[in-house]
Structures are given as C-alpha cells and as structure tokens.
C-alpha cells in the first residue's frame, strides 16, 4: 500500500512536495510533472525560462573579478545554483512577477522586484542557504536575513505580497 501526503505549507506547484512513498506515489509524481510541464508552455511559465536564461547570462558575464569596473568578486557557482533554486520555488500561478536578475559586487546574485524607486524588494543569495533581503515600501522599509531550505521563507513571501497585493 502506498501513501501520498501533500505538504500544505508549500506555496508553489513547480516542485512536487510530498513525503509519500511507494509505486503509486512515484506514478502520481510523474503525472504531476507532466501537468506542470504542460503549464510551462503557458505565457506565465514561459517567463520562468526567460528568467533562468537571464540568470545564466548574468552568471556568465560576471564570472571574472572586477566585472563592475571596481573590485567586484566574481559571481559564484553557489550563488548561481541557489538563485536558480529560488526562482524555481516561486509560485508559478501568482500575480507576483518573475524577478529581474542583477549581480552584486560581493559575488552574490540579486533578484529584484521593482515597481518604483520607493516600491522595491531585493534579495540576494550566495550559496550559503541564506537569503539577505531589503525592501522599500513607500515610507516603510525592511531588511533582514532568513534561512533558505526547501522553500521560500514566509517573511520573503510576505514582503513580496506587500508589493503586489
């Protein structure tokens, strides 16, 4: 007998979050990924691929020290893969758009949601299971650091909602 248990706290559909086991669970997982694969063909999900492509371009362009004309560290592989993981963890069906990608002089990858000079959230990753974030929301502002494990920390999601809901 197989058991499938979906994780109710997981906010995205791009990853099959289950603690189920057995043949049925594997079959269901495969079925699930087929559905997601079809969804990826939709416009919203096409933007995921564009964002991942943009991430790769930033990583390639900024892989040498001093890429900013000053003394920037090269973007690390760890930062690249962690940024990829973050992007793929974003809710696929949501009004939150895909982020813009920018390199940080410290070798991190920055993901940016920009609605205006005083409506912006940036996060950065550096391959250390850590998200460093800062945001401006009109006269309000916030910053902090969160552990990044299997899913996007709720604090980061809440700040994204401050921008888009």
């Amino acid at each position, binding site marked *: 007998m197989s058991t499938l248990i979906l994780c109710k706290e997981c906010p995205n559909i791009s990853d099959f979050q289950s603690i189920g086991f057995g043949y049925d669970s594997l079959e269901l997982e495969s079925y699930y990924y087929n559905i997601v694969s079809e969804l990826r063909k939709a416009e919203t999900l096409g933007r995921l691929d564009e964002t991942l492509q943009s991430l790769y371009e*930033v990583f390639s*362009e*900024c892989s040498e020290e*001093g*890429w*900013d*004309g*000053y*003394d*920037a*560290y090269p973007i690390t592989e760890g930062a690249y893969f962690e940024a990829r993981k973050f992007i793929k963890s974003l809710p696929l069906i949501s009004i939150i758009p895909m982020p*813009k990608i*920018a*390199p*940080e*002089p*410290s*070798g991190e990858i*920055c993901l*940016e949601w*920009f609605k205006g*000079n*005083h409506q*912006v959230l*940036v996060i*950065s990753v550096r391959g250390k299971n850590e998200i*460093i*974030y*800062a*945001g*401006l929301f009109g006269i309000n*502002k*916030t*910053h*902090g*650091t969160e552990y990044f494990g299997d899913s996007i920390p709720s604090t980061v999601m809440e700040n994204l909602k401050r921008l888009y809901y």
Partner: protein
Amino acid sequence: MVEVDSSEILARFIFSIRMYRADNSIRHTAFIPNPKNSETSVFRISDISDDEIWEIGDSVGVIREKPILGRADITAAVVMSKDLKIIPEEPPERHANIIGWSNDLSKQKMIALELASEAQLHLK
C-alpha cells in the same frame, strides 16, 4: 583637503549595464561598497562642467580598463542622512569615499536602495 559639504553633488561612475534598469533608474548595486575595503568611490562634481565630469570618468575608465557608461549623481546631504561619511581621498583629484557602511549586509542593501532611489542617472 576641504571637507565635503552637504550641498555638494557626488558622482558614482558606472561601468556595467547591470547597475541600472531599462527605465534608466539606478540599482542599489551601484552604491554597494567595494567588498575589499567597504568603501564606495565617488567624485565631487559640484562646480565643474559636464564635459569635465566625463573627462574624469574617462580617466577612471582607463585605469579600470572599462569604458564608462554613465554616472549616478547624488547630493552629499542624502548620503550623510544615512549615517554615512564622505571622506576626501586624493589623488585622483576630486575623489572621495563613502565610508561607515554597516557590516550587516541586509542593512547595507537597504541603505543602498535608499541612495539609489534618490540618485539621478546620466548616461554618457
């Protein structure tokens, strides 16, 4: 060297297109301090012409082996209001460093966001 007055304009020269957005607004990354010395290098440009500013930028570009793309101008008052200091450091002429950045990287980001939101981009 004369201390920086709050009314002065500072220019942060930009050598990477990644430092500004398609709508010509400036990213916070333009002001993030150099990871090797925790300083943000700027030039004091209040009393010189645009041509003279670009001349300085070009000369910095030669040293950095990168063509200059633009500059982010910001008033010293905005920088000082974030508990940062601007210390003249010549040569080169008119050069200064923004120092006093927090070691907390998230706070550093937030302040850089605030600076970027008040800065004006001038493309070459």
